[in-house]
């Protein structure tokens, strides 16, 4: 019978290029491509991660102050999101879950657009075509099929394997460890493999699906799931921004070149609660959190930059200031987000409005008007 690998904490194949202690290490298959000025690139990653974390902590605070209805925290997943987000080319397209705040940031989406959804003034209604960053998807797994279909469209547009770096296009589907159990996610593997679609399945295994540990979903490392569908899977240290960047870059290029799908399992940890309404103390040990704090994705980069004299306190202070500014902008911005006009919802259901709904709108408008006098 076919052999399979027994479950193991971090898997037998685990791509890491920067250790938690801040040391660069080699990997046979992957090397970090830092471009012309590697130091500059890594400083950029550091800045990205700090700002992303600030978006997260600031939003958590805003929820506590009642400015947001809820917030999905990414604390601890900064490297997975910045490392992958920075590997994207402008023409690539992203299909996120509801937690990809760092990827959204990389795509240039104003964080306030994210807050609109969590404040409840809209449902995350940004135009995805402006940034090639799709709309947040809350139904677990649904977006992986959208990504696969979009990639099938890219194939039909002849934008795979042309060799033109400006045109060849890849698509990324983000999803979680829990999502890997959904039929839709597995069907997306089927379709992607069947059509050899240019899509990268990027799974952030943050060890938890709300209160359920990863082991409930799979008894073997998740990246091995891809084997069962006939395409490669790889597990990367999700808290190592350099390794995530290298692995994602390779997978994206493979997709753009016409070699089809790849699954990436970014092995990371949800350091915060599932959302601001969740209470992790009900289901997990604080020891676990302590263990993962030692693997913090930002700390290791700071150590590395400092030790190699690639950044000085001036730089770190500047980043802090940028973060403070961003935080202030979010605080002011979120309060300024206008509530929608109740009547507007009737106009957003269809591209071609129906008489029926227009009439319902008018009826409601008249009803609302009937109170004008009253109050």
């Amino acid at each position, binding site marked *: 019978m076919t052999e399979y690998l027994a479950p193991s904490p971090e898997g037998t194949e685990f791509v890491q290029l920067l250790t938690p202690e801040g040391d660069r290490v080699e990997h046979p298959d992957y090397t970090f491509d830092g471009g012309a000025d590697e130091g500059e690139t890594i400083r950029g990653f550091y800045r990205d991660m700090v700002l992303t974390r600030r978006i997260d902590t600031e939003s958590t605070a805003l929820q506590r102050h009642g400015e947001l209805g809820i917030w999905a925290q990414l604390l601890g997943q900064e490297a997975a999101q910045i490392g992958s987000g920075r590997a994207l080319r402008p023409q690539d397209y992203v299909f996120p879950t509801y937690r990809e705040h760092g990827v959204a940031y990389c795509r240039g989406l104003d964080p306030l657009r994210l807050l609109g959804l969590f404040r409840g003034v809209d449902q995350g209604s940004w135009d995805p075509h402006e940034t090639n960053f799709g709309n947040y998807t809350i139904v677990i797994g649904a977006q992986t099929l959208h990504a696969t279909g979009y990639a099938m469209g890219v194939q039909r547009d002849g934008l795979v394997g042309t060799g033109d770096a400006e045109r060849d296009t890849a698509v990324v589907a983000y999803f979680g460890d829990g999502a890997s159990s959904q039929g839709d996610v597995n069907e997306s593997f089927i379709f992607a493999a069947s059509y050899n679609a240019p899509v990268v399945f990027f799974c952030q295994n943050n060890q938890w699906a709300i209160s359920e540990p990863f082991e409930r979903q799979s008894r073997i490392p998740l990246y091995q799931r891809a084997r069962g569908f006939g395409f490669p899977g790889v597990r990367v240290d999700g808290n190592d921004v350099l390794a995530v960047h290298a692995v994602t870059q390779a997978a994206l290029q493979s997709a753009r070149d016409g070699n089809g799908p790849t699954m990436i399992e970014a092995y990371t940890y949800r350091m915060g609660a599932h959302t601001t309404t969740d209470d992790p103390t009900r289901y997990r040990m604080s020891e676990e959190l302590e263990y993962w704090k030692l693997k913090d994705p930002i700390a290791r980069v700071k150590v590395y930059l400092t030790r190699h004299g690639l950044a000085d306190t001036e730089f770190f202070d500047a980043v802090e200031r940028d973060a403070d500014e961003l935080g202030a902008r979010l605080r002011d911005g979120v309060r300024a987000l206008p509530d929608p006009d109740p009547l507007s*919802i009737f106009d957003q259901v269809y591209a071609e409005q129906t008489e029926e709904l227009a009439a319902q709108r008018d009826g409601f408008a008249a009803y609302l008007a009937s109170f004008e006098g009253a109050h």
Partner: protein
Amino acid sequence: MAKVTLAKALNAGLRKAMEDDPKVLLMGEDVGKLGGVFRITDGLQKDFGEDRVIDSPLAESGILGTAVGLAIRGYRPVCEIQFDGFVYPAYDQIVSQVAKMHFRTQGAVKMPMVIRIPFGGGIGAVEHHSESPEAQFAHTPGLKVVACSNPVDGYWMIQQAIACDDPVVFLEPKRQYHADKAELDENATPAPLFTSRVVRPGTDATVLAYGPMVKACMTAAEAAAGEGRSLEVIDLRTLSPLDMGPVYESVRRTGRAIVAHEAHTNLGMGAEISARITEECFYSLEAPVLRVGGFDTPYPPSRIEEDYLPDLDRVLDAVDRSFGF
């Protein structure tokens, strides 16, 4: 063009739509070489290629979910669900994604998609092959739902549905696919898609139907005429939105309305239509709106499906009951 069946008319309509717009794609199980189990896509893969007529893996959620992605990329997917009873694995993608994408994005993302569903019974099939799921889709804001009842409408409505920038659930009465032929004039100008139509004028009572029941109601009207009763028959054609104007106008004249469909009576289209007519034509009604529908049981074994399906006699029985008030 000669007289054609509904199947041939739909095939011609799909071909025309694909010629007119290179972004139109057909997807589904067995739609390629086989041309679909009902042959509606017969010959289209041969002529338009595998990139535009796509045989999908056996997964309905996968079909609809990838269609959403294709639509986001600017394509106009036409998805074939092999049989009505097999649309449910795709229900989540249809109700939570296809129907809500335009609303979620405030129009930034459109879903110009058609979901073709051969629906209804009467073909002697096994379980899950004779369902009438229309009410569930009509209850879902964001979707539009239409049902054709004859070859000419089939030819035009499928093209209009594909041209529509909103997702359209397109119901095809499979029982009629290879039944009556009709003369098709490709140069005629069709009525707008979301309109109902008086298919037989009458004065004594209004009979409302769509899809497979239109034929039964026309025969019923014929029979009633013999007994001196003049029934006005309206083919609703569009189930969401409903085009109630002609219906109200008719009921205000006749004072009586009967709605017929194969779907379960409980919470079927007849319920909504009855409620609306009563709200709008309260003082004109001589009798309550009566419903003739499938019973509130699962679709039965085929040997007794004709007992289950509403037919001429049950429509006439309802007419009698209406006049009994």
